[in-house]
């Protein structure tokens, strides 16, 4: 780890942790219970650069490396999984594709307010009938004069309830090749752009996950990102970075669960000693510590590979798969250590347990990740 982390990374961690401990941790339970998006904190995070972590400075970003990005998402998620989710989705699958594939005018128009945290971004791929099989989407964009006429029903949109700038995956040639998918940017407020009800989810409740629907919505042809038919390429590039973010998020939640587990095991006394003296608890703590450390190494390594300009898709997929499954195990053990109290809302571990579960599902399920990883490990033969 010492080879990967520099002095800069330590200062990034210290300053983000200090902010999160003071501003986010104290309200994390409350915003989860009330399913409330904490604008008051999000505004402060925007001013500190949390919404433009890797964007260039000319566009108001912080221009940090991917290892810093992973540390920041880890630290925010350690305080609140919901806010970690907001930040990672905004940065990696909304802002990043605009930076990587957008024209100069598009960067000025959308990347700038996104990087400064003045606007929140979203990534709209999933539909009721298309998830793991992204090429099966049914949303359409038909060009008509200077605009696309868009009809779409996008579901489970992270940040959906608050997003101003949404990347929509659509079929630009609905009658032709089923793979001709493109990305068109839609701004909230455009006539025909409708934000659906917020989802009532098991975890990540402070994130306003919603459906977004477009009914004959006219979006200028200039809102096309890259070229027509580039949708899957843009999506895959975004998800490589996004997966690293989800790995970092799972790592942060697991770290929080480990810390709570240790704290409780030292305080709780049964059979006249703290339960941390009982072998059964010690075995769990050992496994939790090991899983967290392994997740951290895999996540930072994927990030370091990206920083050095090397291929990192396989490592990022492995990190996401491992860290999300580790997070579920670690939060489960944290609940177990707490016994009945762990199942109660009096302690934060039940929130971690709920938040952890979705990390194995979104931005590619564990099963899709295993498919992708197997392809990489076995080669094409």
């Amino acid at each position, binding site marked *: 780890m*010492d080879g990967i982390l*520099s*002095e*800069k990374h*330590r*200062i*990034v961690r*210290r*300053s983000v942790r*200090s*902010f999160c401990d003071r501003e986010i941790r104290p309200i994390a339970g409350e915003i989860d219970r009330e399913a409330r998006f904490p604008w008051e904190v999000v505004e*402060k995070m925007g*001013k*500190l*650069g*949390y919404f433009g*972590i890797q964007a260039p*400075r000319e566009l108001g*970003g*912080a*221009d*940090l490396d991917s290892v*810093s990005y992973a540390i*920041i998402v880890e630290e925010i998620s350690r305080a609140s999984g919901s806010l970690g989710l907001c930040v990672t989705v905004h940065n990696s699958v909304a802002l990043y594709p605009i930076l990587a594939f957008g024209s100069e005018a598009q960067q000025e128009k959308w990347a700038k307010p996104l990087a400064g945290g003045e606007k929140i971004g979203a990534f709209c791929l999933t539909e009721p009938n298309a998830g793991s099989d992204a090429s099966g989407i049914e949303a359409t964009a038909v060009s008509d004069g200077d605009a696309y006429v868009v009809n779409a029903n996008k579901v489970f949109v992270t940040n959906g309830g608050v997003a101003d700038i949404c990347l929509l995956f659509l079929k630009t040639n609905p009658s032709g090749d089923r793979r001709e998918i493109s990305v068109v940017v839609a701004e909230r407020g455009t006539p025909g752009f409708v934000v659906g009800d917020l989802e009532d989810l098991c975890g990540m409740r402070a994130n306003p996950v919603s459906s977004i629907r477009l009914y004959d919505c006219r979006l200028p042809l200039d809102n096309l990102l890259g070229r027509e038919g580039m949708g899957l390429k843009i999506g895959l590039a975004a998800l490589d970075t996004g997966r690293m973010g989800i790995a970092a998020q799972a790592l942060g939640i697991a770290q929080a669960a480990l810390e709570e587990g240790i704290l409780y095991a030292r305080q709780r006394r049964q059979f006249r000693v703290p339960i941390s003296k009982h072998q059964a608890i010690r075995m769990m703590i050992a496994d939790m510590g090991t899983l967290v450390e392994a997740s951290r190494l895999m996540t930072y390594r994927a990030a370091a590979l990206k920083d050095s300009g090397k291929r990192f898709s396989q490592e990022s997929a492995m990190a996401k798969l491992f860290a999300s499954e580790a997070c579920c195990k670690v939060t489960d053990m944290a609940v177990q250590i707490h016994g009945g109290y762990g199942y109660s809302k009096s302690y934060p571990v039940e929130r971690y347990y709920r938040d952890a579960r979705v990390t194995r599902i979104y931005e590619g399920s564990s099963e899709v990740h295993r498919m992708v990883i197997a392809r990489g490990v076995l080669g094409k033969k």
Partner: protein
Amino acid sequence: MGFHIVVCIKSVILAAPEEQVVRTEDTSELNPFDRPVLEAALRLKELHGGRVTAISMGPEASLSALSEARAMGVDREILISDPAFAGSDTLATSTVLGAGLQKLVPFDLVLFGVRTADSDTGQVGPQTSVQLGIPFISMVSGIEWQKDVFRVERVADHFLEEYEVTSPVAFTIHPGAFEPRDLGLSGIGRAFESERVERWNLSDLGLVPERVGDAGSPTRVISMMRVKETKKCEFLKGDAREQADELMKRLSESGAIGA
């Protein structure tokens, strides 16, 4: 040249496992009592313009403290480092910092943390001011700059003291008086973009080895050990009134409550 503030900061040891003091970047961090000091300096700069210089004496591991100062918004950082400084006590440290500050003249204000989190003497600020022969006020909780005069507030023994003092002057800053800002991510990125920290050694300061390090230190730390805290529980006897009387007697005898 404009308004010039110099802040003296230290990189402190976070942990000394097995009682061994090893200074590495992993175990060091900017002294937490120095963060409010940097904040005070940066707020004055924001109000009156000018520049802030941070200096730190210590080994290479102290660079992290200077980088953090830069990320907060300091304009210039200087690491004062030389193998000859090893083993300096507070007097030798003040000699070195004083010599460094002489090279930074002209300045209007020198600021120190009230103490450090690792050695906790609180002596370096006042001693350095004596070395420089400039006025010094401790535990300052408010600073106003009015045409060559600082108006300063200090709370001591439940009294608010106000001072007017001309520059150049040195203060230590009350740790609770200036809530340090959160570091913006772009500030951190910028701070590490280029190697900007200047380095001064013994000969740059025009000092002789006899006045610094072990040789220049009249105090010796003979040993260091962890203090074990013990708690003892005692039940008072008698009826409620007798117990209350006995409790009052003990509390007032121990000085826990006023007589």
